[in-house]
């Protein structure tokens, strides 16, 4: 019984639509759980700036507030280990997701970002049997998710052996930054870019940058944002444009919530859990688009049963 347990969400960043969707999913699902008396409280906390030190301080404060479990989307996989160790030492259950932490005492709900990057290339290899030149849009330098996805992409390129990455820019997972970076580098690239591998949140910006030139539109892998899906749909209707879209679902925060609840409930839960990423393809585009809020991100929310299934699957 966890009806007297209190769970906190420690979030390091709220400045984009993905994070906002994540917070909303949390609010919706945990709000219901609190109303149903499953847990006593499930409060969300966000730091003012996306900074390791600030989140470390936040976690320490959550310990002081006596939460029984802290669910973390971490600013850094390593930088919070000191604070996480303090939490574990104080008997607090720590569950990390999306941005996971490496401190062994914490649980991790990981997405295989490397696989995600690799899948992008594999998809392109399917679509473009003769290969060609690729443009890579990376995320924020020095953040591990960026390294993971990029490593997967490069691994995919090496494995398939028919692509060459002719340009790489940092788009900081932001539409306008990606647009600017791509617009800057495009003129210097060969004319035959066949594909753009991305990390999410940057596909539409890349499309805009290509639009501004008279180049052929390459296959741009999308990242599940509403604007990306909408653009894709328009292109699909107009000229049969094909691509795929992949990202981690923001609702994974709710999975982390249920996992934390299960741990508090005494369930035996392995330290490492994996969730699949949310992939949208040509045939289920319309369905997913319809389910995505205008301006938001394609999402999946989890129930207690989903969580139990994930836990059972990992054992």
């Amino acid at each position: 019984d966890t009806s007297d347990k209190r769970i906190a969400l420690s979030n390091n960043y709220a400045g984009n639509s993905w994070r906002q969707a994540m917070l909303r999913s949390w609010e919706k699902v945990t709000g219901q759980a609190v109303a149903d008396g499953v847990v006593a409280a499930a409060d969300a906390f966000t730091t003012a700036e996306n900074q390791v030190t600030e989140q470390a301080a936040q976690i320490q404060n959550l310990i002081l507030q006596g939460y029984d479990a802290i669910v973390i989307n971490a600013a850094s996989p390593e930088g919070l280990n000191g604070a996480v160790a303090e939490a574990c030492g104080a008997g607090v259950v720590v569950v990390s997701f999306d941005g996971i932490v490496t401190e062994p005492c914490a649980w991790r709900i990981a997405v295989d970002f490397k696989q995600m990057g690799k899948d992008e290339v594999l998809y392109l290899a399917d679509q473009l049997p003769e290969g060609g030149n690729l443009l890579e849009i990376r995320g924020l330098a020095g953040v591990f998710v960026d390294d993971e996805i990029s490593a997967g992409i490069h691994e995919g390129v090496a494995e398939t052996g028919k692509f060459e990455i002719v340009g790489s820019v940092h788009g900081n997972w932001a539409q306008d930054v990606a647009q600017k970076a791509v617009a800057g580098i495009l003129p210097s690239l060969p004319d035959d870019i066949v594909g753009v591998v991305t990390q999410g949140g940057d596909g539409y910006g890349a499309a805009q940058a290509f639009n501004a030139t008279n180049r052929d539109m390459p296959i741009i892998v999308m990242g599940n944002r509403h604007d990306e899906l909408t653009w894709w749909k328009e292109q699909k209707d107009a000229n049969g444009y094909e691509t795929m879209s992949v990202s981690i679902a923001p609702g994974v925060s709710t999975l982390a919530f249920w996992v934390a609840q299960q741990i508090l409930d005494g369930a035996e839960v392995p330290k490492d859990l994996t969730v699949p990423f949310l992939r949208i393809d040509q045939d289920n585009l319309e369905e997913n688009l319809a389910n995505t809020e205008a301006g938001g991100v394609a999402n999946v929310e989890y129930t207690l049963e989903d969580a139990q299934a994930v836990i059972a699957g990992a054992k």
Partner: protein
Amino acid sequence: MTALLRKPWLWAWLGALAVWLATATFTHGRGSAEVLSAALTFGAFFVIVALGQMFVITLGPGNVDLSIPACMTLAGTVAMKTMDGAASMIPLGLVLALAIGAGVGVINYALIRLLRIPPIIATLSSSFIFQSAAIWWNRGLRVKPPEALADFTTAKLAGVPVIAIAVVLMAVAGHVLLTRTIYGRGVVAIGQNMRAAHLAGVRVERIRAATYIMCATLAGLCGYLLSAFSGGAALNMGEEYLLSSIAVVVIGGTSVAGGFANVPGLWGAALFMFLLVTMLNTFGAGAGVRLVLTGLIIIGVIVAASGGKRGT
């Protein structure tokens, strides 16, 4: 010739030219014209905010507006959500964005004046509040801009981006404002010595208020145009404008100690900053090397620009 060498804006333009040539050499001239066109477009956004920031910085040591990113975000999100893609709402959206900017400026100035908080801290603190307001307003949803507005921001006239032309005109107006009006003289006087300016009959507080309000209004305008240009407002869309706006102003030859400003340098520095990143991207440098080089080149330009001065 020596008169030209002493122009404060010269070095920014030389820097821009040098990195552009370096890029062109590397790519054997391919796409150089397009790079320039892209630089004009993106440089225009920098110049809009830098114009306001320049007037603020000229007010003297410690004067700087750190709320530009938050103001851009707030104005952009509110305008986009209000217009909701409807062409008929474009003017209303613009007015709204400008009004939000002006409001932000009023709040900033009130903090500085009434609560005597140093500008750097006042605008930093207020920016958190504006950022929260933007989140609260539409929680990061990305609303598309009206088609016509987006087209305007991406349109070209004889190969030159329309927005760049508009911003060049704005810069000319800024130059006239700085050098040929009582307001502009006042700003420069305050930047050199606020007490002396007051005692020389300059309406110090009126001018300071006007400057902070103008700066934030320009940030609002930039937020509006940028979100139209990039297909909607994002909560993090202004982030890189925080340091860039300062860098553009100072690389452009305006004195950070206040009391001395110039507008032509803004365009030079904005182009320089964009072309620099493009050059390093083109060279295929890794993130670490790219950052180190960016920093060193910025310092290099400043050192070169100070060539005339002797150490004191």
